[in-house]
């Protein structure tokens, strides 16, 4: 079982320029082994906050703590062993002439021995089913495969914490679910996963907890059911729950009590409580 560290962001302030404040006192605690969804409108500060967790950005004010220790003295290269970051655009994270070399880049940056680099590359190729394209240039692959390679390349660092910045953008639902199933599996093995997304269907399906961001702050945290049960928060942050959640809420307000955040859960709840109504 992987032992993931506890991450804390305490009163983080950051601005890309004086006219462009991005974080304005953001607080967030990420517990070990949770699958946390970080949601909010574009520009609410999700990626900026996440980039502080592995030292890609350093706060103007505030502190990031890993297992209670301030990380300001640790380089991003060191933090990369703990927190892996998958960027939104795969083309921004593919640097090598072949898939095989791409997977070996991170371990080489970490200064691992050639044997260990090879082991990790082979394991990465196998885990993500990339053996047949190991010698191909990443730039020549389809978007879905480039996305897969970019994730496999982070996987070779074997980080206990993963930050996924809108990993399913540009993927069809089936591919998105396949990808997220992989991370759900990692999560059950003990990895912490922080998922930045606009897709609320993924949030209700995979997240154990949700943190909602607005104007550079975390304005609400809770289980998906708790968050989607707060109409004031949804309205102020312009979050739209998945259609099934809205349907369940409307049925409940009309007197038909059922629960569930997914279609399957709502159906189960309906059958359990109102089977007699089916006639």
């Amino acid at each position: 079982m992987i032992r993931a560290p506890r991450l804390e962001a305490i009163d983080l302030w950051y601005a890309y320029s004086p006219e462009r404040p991005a974080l304005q006192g953001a607080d967030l605690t990420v517990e070990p082994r949770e699958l946390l969804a970080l949601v909010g409108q574009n520009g609410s500060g999700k990626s900026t906050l996440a980039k502080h967790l592995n030292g890609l950005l350093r706060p103007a004010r505030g502190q990031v703590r890993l297992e209670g220790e301030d990380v300001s003295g640790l380089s991003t290269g060191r933090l990369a062993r703990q927190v892996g970051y998958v960027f939104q655009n795969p083309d921004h994270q593919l640097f090598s002439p072949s898939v095989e070399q791409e997977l070996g880049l991170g371990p080489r940056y970490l200064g691992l021995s050639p044997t260990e680099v090879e082991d990790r590359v082979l394991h990465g190729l196998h885990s993500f089913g990339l053996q047949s394209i190991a010698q191909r240039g990443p730039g020549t692959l389809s978007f879905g495969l480039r996305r897969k390679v970019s994730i496999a390349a982070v996987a070779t660092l074997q980080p206990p914490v993963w930050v996924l910045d809108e990993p399913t953008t540009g993927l069809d639902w089936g591919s998105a679910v396949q990808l997220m199933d992989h991370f759900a599996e990692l999560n059950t093995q003990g990895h912490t996963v922080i998922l930045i997304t606009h897709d609320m269907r993924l949030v209700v399906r995979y997240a154990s907890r949700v943190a909602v961001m607005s104007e550079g702050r975390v304005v609400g945290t809770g289980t998906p059911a708790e968050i989607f049960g707060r109409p004031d928060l949804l309205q102020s942050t312009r979050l739209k729950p998945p259609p099934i959640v809205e349907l369940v809420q409307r049925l409940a307000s009309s007197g038909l009590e059922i629960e569930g955040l997914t279609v399957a859960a709502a159906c189960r709840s309906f059958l359990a409580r109102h089977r007699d109504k089916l006639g």
Partner: protein
Amino acid sequence: MHRADPRVKLATVVTSMLLLLVLQHPLIFLVAVLGLAGLYRLAGLPASKIWQVGRAVLPVGLLLAALRAIFYPAGLVLAALGPLQITGGGLAQGATLGLRLVGMALAIFLWLYTTESQSIVRGLVKLGLPYPWGLSIGLALRFIPTIRENYDTIVQAQQARGLDLEHTRGLGRVRALLPGLIALMVSSLRASENVARALEARAFGAPGVRRSYLVDLAFRPVDWLLLLLLGLGAGAILLLYFRFGFGADPLRLLS
């Protein structure tokens, strides 16, 4: 500043560059750099923009100034270390070179910061440049900040994979950043292909059609006045230069 015709602004940039190349005195360039900084503020641009331009060219400017000061000794020796001498003339020439670079960068970026890319294209086309060329230049300029942002993200992605830039200096740093340039090239080529397709999809280059403009450029009286003032100012400086040697020597204002 923002409202002036792009052709007037282009003429101002070209004239500034010409004067910065012809004149040689560091004091004149210092005044020019301060004047350009004043124009930034007049145009409502934040001081951070001046700093951004300065930060980009200052290292090269300082390097050129130092090399010039060391390897072109002239006049009074101020300090010596073995065969190397720092002289008054060398320092003045070095300062001229450094300030010239900063002045040129400030002039070009003032034009870019105060002119929309569409206006740049229209201005260049009005001056006789074929439209596809003008559009290419406008697009290239428009994408500079995007490419810069992409490069920053790519470097972050390298760091996120374990690259320790904080403890890498000099040539090692350059070597470490090379893979990032490959990624930048690939993403830029992909983006340019997408832009080309998007333009074609919006009828760019449709045969037998002459492009029309929703808002066309027209010189206003104030543009003519600005052009006249520019001509008179530049003419006066050049007259002083040729007639009295104003600014022709890095050590003396008048020869």
